[in-house]
């Protein structure tokens, strides 16, 4: 009875984490399309929401656990593991909300890994973590991927602007605006494929631990797939305007050829890495792509202060989410299993409501970001003038 109640909370928090993942990562796919006026903000997030939902069903292989190979698998099964998974999800979700409040794009995947690691260390010991595999499979790829995406985007932008001289400003920018719709859609699809399945895997393991899924004939229940897909889709549709503003407007003054190059480079890096067994953070790859696209046109067009904030957030994401996951587990362990789980969920809900309330003071809406009324000529003349949309 105790574990059934905790299982229900794990499922709810899993869906809640996917919801925050959705609005946190909408910017990855659609920020540049919104910033260049290729799409209206609400149309962009609507397309992204549909594609995230579809992407969740594309791949038939499910990542059984995002921490596979990093955390001792013995730790993630068994009745007590439900408390650990719940604490990890709360840590990851809370970190997502904190970085959303501060308008900083950060990796939901790394937040989830950090939450699991932090909760595991507090619940057992650091000996249950394969630190070498963590560095090899997560940290090294995370360090290299933004540079690869940035380099590819910079090269693409350099070549695109050489072509624009022959093509003409208006025709080129109009054409690349159309192209952005497709490149951004591909990133949305890839995001749905990768990220929804991580939570499917976490919830499925919880069901295995509770004995609801056969240990010998493993398959993800349809309701889990639908729930995760719907959660990430609804989160995407809610907008995440604060992070879209950062990604699309505050890194560099992006134009449609740059947006197309950034999204194409990012999609290529994400899909290639995933295919060769190195799932990456969509956020970090796209940020690297946008940075590279900015540098490809003019080195002084990048706002390095914003880049510094983002990199700082990336460095502290795993330790930060880990600390929150560890704290959540420690608090839940003070009480009886049912009560402890209920307490940390209540605290997480209160924290989420508090952050949402604070965010209303500096609210960013879809209408603040709408650039579809900006002509392609005006877009060219915007270079060098940073848009001023107030954020915290």
């Amino acid at each position: 009875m105790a574990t059934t109640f905790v299982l229900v909370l794990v499922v709810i928090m899993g869906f809640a984490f996917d919801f925050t993942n959705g609005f946190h990562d909408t910017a990855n796919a659609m920020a540049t399309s919104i910033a260049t006026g290729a799409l209206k903000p609400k149309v962009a997030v609507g397309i992204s929401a549909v594609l995230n939902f579809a992407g969740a069903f594309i791949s038939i292989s499910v990542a059984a656990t995002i921490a596979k190979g990093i955390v001792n698998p013995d730790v993630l099964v068994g009745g007590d593991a439900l408390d650990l998974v719940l604490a990890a999800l709360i840590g990851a979700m809370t970190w997502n909300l904190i970085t959303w409040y501060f308008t900083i794009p950060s990796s939901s995947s790394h937040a989830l890994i950090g939450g699991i690691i932090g909760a595991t260390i507090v619940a057992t010991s650091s000996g249950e973590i394969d630190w070498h595999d963590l560095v090899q499979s997560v940290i090294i790829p995370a360090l290299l991927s933004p540079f690869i995406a940035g380099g590819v985007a910079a090269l693409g932008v350099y070549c695109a602007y050489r072509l624009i001289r022959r093509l003409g400003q208006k025709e080129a920018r109009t054409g690349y605006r159309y192209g952005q719709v497709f490149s951004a859609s591909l990133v949305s699809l890839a995001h749905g494929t990768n990220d929804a399945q991580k939570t499917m895997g976490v919830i499925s393991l919880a069901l295995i631990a509770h004995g609801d899924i056969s240990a010998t004939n493993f398959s993800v229940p349809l309701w889990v797939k639908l729930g995760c897909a719907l959660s990430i889709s609804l989160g995407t549709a809610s907008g995440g305007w604060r992070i879209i503003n950062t990604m699309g407007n505050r890194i560099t003054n992006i134009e449609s050829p740059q947006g197309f190059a950034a999204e194409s480079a990012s999609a290529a890096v994400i899909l290639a890495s995933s295919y060769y067994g190195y799932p990456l953070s969509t956020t970090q790859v796209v940020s690297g792509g946008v940075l590279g696209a900015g540098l490809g046109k003019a080195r002084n067009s990048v706002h390095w202060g914003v880049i510094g904030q983002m990199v700082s957030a990336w460095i502290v994401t795993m330790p930060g989410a880990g600390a929150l996951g560890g704290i959540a587990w420690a608090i839940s362990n003070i009480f009886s299993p049912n009560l402890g789980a209920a307490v940390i969920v209540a605290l997480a809900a209160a924290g989420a409501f508090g952050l949402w309330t604070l965010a209303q003071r500096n609210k960013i809406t879809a209408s603040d970001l709408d650039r579809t009324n900006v002509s392609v000529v005006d877009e060219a003349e915007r270079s060098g003038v940073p848009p001023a949309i107030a954020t915290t």
Partner: protein
Amino acid sequence: MTILAAASTPLIDWSALWRIALAALIGGAGIVILFGFLLYGVKVANQAKSEGHEGRRIGAYFVSGVCGAICVALVVVGIYAMAHKPKSKPTPPPKSAAVYKPAASRTELVASLP
């Protein structure tokens, strides 16, 4: 994993890294360049049409069509890669847990899952 075993395993899989970089270069920068040529071909074709050069118009549309087809092919390859992700690297054998004592079948299942 022991310290010696960990130290002997390279941190960077250079083989995978160059494949990823190459795929990103072709799929990322390549599609941007091809799309640019697609737009340029359409522009040249429109100019040729207004000047009455039929052969040049057909040639320009042909180039645009080929570039567009390659762009679409790259997108299809990307979606194929999404749908057919190979299994991830095998998990190392589970260590004995100090706290948790799960059933052996569940441990084996987790270790064998992709």
